[in-house]
């Protein structure tokens, strides 16, 4: 098992590929570390100060709103308006937390679990489905292969707005509307996931490796699960994070599909609290603590796995 720390630059898109993620970066031989920059001419102290001040200013811009959220999560409704946003007041974090978890019979916990199921389990399944299909496209030759792959690529271009409404109508005629499956299933198949998975397989899994496994008597599924999958681990993590973030951020589908609050993903739940806050400001601390708690696992997940997706940015692959 290799501990590949980076996804290699995506080589040219596979044959017949449509919307190519453009290959980024030059050959590794030409890559320069930051050491090279430092080794150059010593910049004057004045420009050093200006450069770092500008960078620090923008770091404040990105970090201050998050700091505000953390501070605000410790305040009660009155202090949110009555005290300065970046100043601590009476510490009510635990009270806010207990109030939020008690609200509506503990529905927030339910929303978090739903999100784990929709985005976590959904993304894991999505990656498996994408890798299986991409493996077939990359490792086998069969009639109509590139046509079928082109058919997959059509899906990349279809915006959710076009499919969500008919999905709702189809779901309501089959009784899937307002069910867990009505939100879970439509998000599993990801055409973009298949497209990327094929690029990853083409660059990670040498055909000879799979052929050798077959010569050793491994079946097709064995070759996929025991030979290809371990090599594809970094790619699978990247694909997982992309699918996870896509499902987490898909607001349209659950908004349309669900009316039963106990089936909501956390984003939709917090949204409804935020709407209630217009009439009743006492919801504000719930929205704020809820946002913080909903965000933390996502941020933790991405930070923990950053070595996987960071290289993907260079490959123009993420988002």
């Amino acid at each position, binding site marked *: 098992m290799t501990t590949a720390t980076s996804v290699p630059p995506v080589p040219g898109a596979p044959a017949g590929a449509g919307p190519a993620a453009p290959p980024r970066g030059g050959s590794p031989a030409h890559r320069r570390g930051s050491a090279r920059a430092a080794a150059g001419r010593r910049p004057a102290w004045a420009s050093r100060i200006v450069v770092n001040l500008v960078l620090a200013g923008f770091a404040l811009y990105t970090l201050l709103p998050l700091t505000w959220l953390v501070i605000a999560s410790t305040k009660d409704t009155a202090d949110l308006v009555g005290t300065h946003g970046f100043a601590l007041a009476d510490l009510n974090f635990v009270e806010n937390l207990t109030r939020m978890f008690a609200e509506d019979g503990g529905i927030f916990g339910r929303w978090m679990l739903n999100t784990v199921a929709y985005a976590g389990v959904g993304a894991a399944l999505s990656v498996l489905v994408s890798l299986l299909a991409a493996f077939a496209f990359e490792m086998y030759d069969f009639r109509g292969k590139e046509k079928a792959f082109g058919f997959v690529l059509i899906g990349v271009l279809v915006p959710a707005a076009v499919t969500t409404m008919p999905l709702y109508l189809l779901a309501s005629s089959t009784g899937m509307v307002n069910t867990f499956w009505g939100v879970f299933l439509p998000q599993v198949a990801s055409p973009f996931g298949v497209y990327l998975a094929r690029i990853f397989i083409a660059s990670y899994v040498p055909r000879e490796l799979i*052929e050798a496994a077959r010569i050793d008597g491994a079946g097709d599924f064995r070759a996929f699960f025991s030979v290809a999958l371990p090599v594809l681990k970094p790619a699978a993590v990247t694909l997982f994070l992309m699918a996870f973030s896509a499902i987490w951020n898909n607001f349209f589908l659950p908004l349309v599909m669900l009316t039963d609050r106990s089936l909501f993903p956390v984003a939709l739940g917090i949204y409804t609290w935020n709407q209630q806050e217009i009439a009743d400001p006492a919801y504000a601390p719930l929205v704020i603590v809820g946002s913080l708690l909903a965000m933390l696992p996502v941020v933790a997940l991405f930070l923990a796995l950053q070595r996987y997706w960071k290289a993907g940015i260079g490959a123009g692959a993420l988002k």
Partner: protein
Amino acid sequence: MSALTATPTARATATAKPRRARFPRMVLLFLAPFFVLYGIFTILPLLYSLGLSLYSEQTTGGLGFGGTEQVFVGLDNFTQALGDSQFLTGFVNVLLYCLVYIPVMISVALVLALLLDSAAAKARPFFRLALFVPHIVPALIAAIIWLYLYTPGVSPLIEAFETAGGTWDLTSRLSALFALGNLATWLHLGYNVILFYAALQAIPGEVLEAASIDGAGPIRTAVQIKARMILGAVTVAVLFTVVGAMQLFAEPLLLASRAPAISSTWTPNMFIYQTAFVQQDMGYAAASAVLFAAVIGVLSWLVTRVGRKASS
């Protein structure tokens, strides 16, 4: 049984191709999960949308108390949508939004990437991470945070802004664009910085050495050489941002509840949602969605064309 174990001839070279099989059963098993789900949840709804767009719902009883029935109207929905100022305004709004937001976002990202890449920058890993963190924050949560930061009385930023002599007003059209643009900049600035930074790191060292030997200072090198050499990355970022901006939905929906300038049909996506689920006019919503998809399709196609050209 494998379809390929029948050809155990070891092929030594990387150019070896597996034998062209008719349609091995195993391939079907590998492809089935994706294609079944894709067919049911993407292709079928897409076709359904196309079909719906040709029908109009008309009430049979008076005053809407009776049932509705589907009447075939051909392309009427499409001609109606193309003349519907509300629908078209959505595109105009997105266009204005792009005009305000993209130049700011891209130029700031480019400057920050160049600064990070310059020899003068300290603590690069910290700055990269700090700038990037918002990109990990889910968009809806970011919208909620900024919604509070746009609320007078709650927001320390508005307090500072008003102390400095500004007047806060989220009711004008321009301030709505600003509010959304700032949210998007906050979310995606770091991503573009890292994208550009990665492209800068890939510029061959010899090019920069040559510039330095020719007497170019750090600022001239940054503007005339580095910025030009990563033009491809910049173009791609702009086009991706446009396609993303077209699909705005959750963020303006959330801001609409507090900023009067953002109507319930402010973006094409919001218009489709409103038409389908508030006005319950599925045929018309489907036609607008199909038109919208066509625009997205053309734009995405442009992205790949330009992207490929820029990267070659």
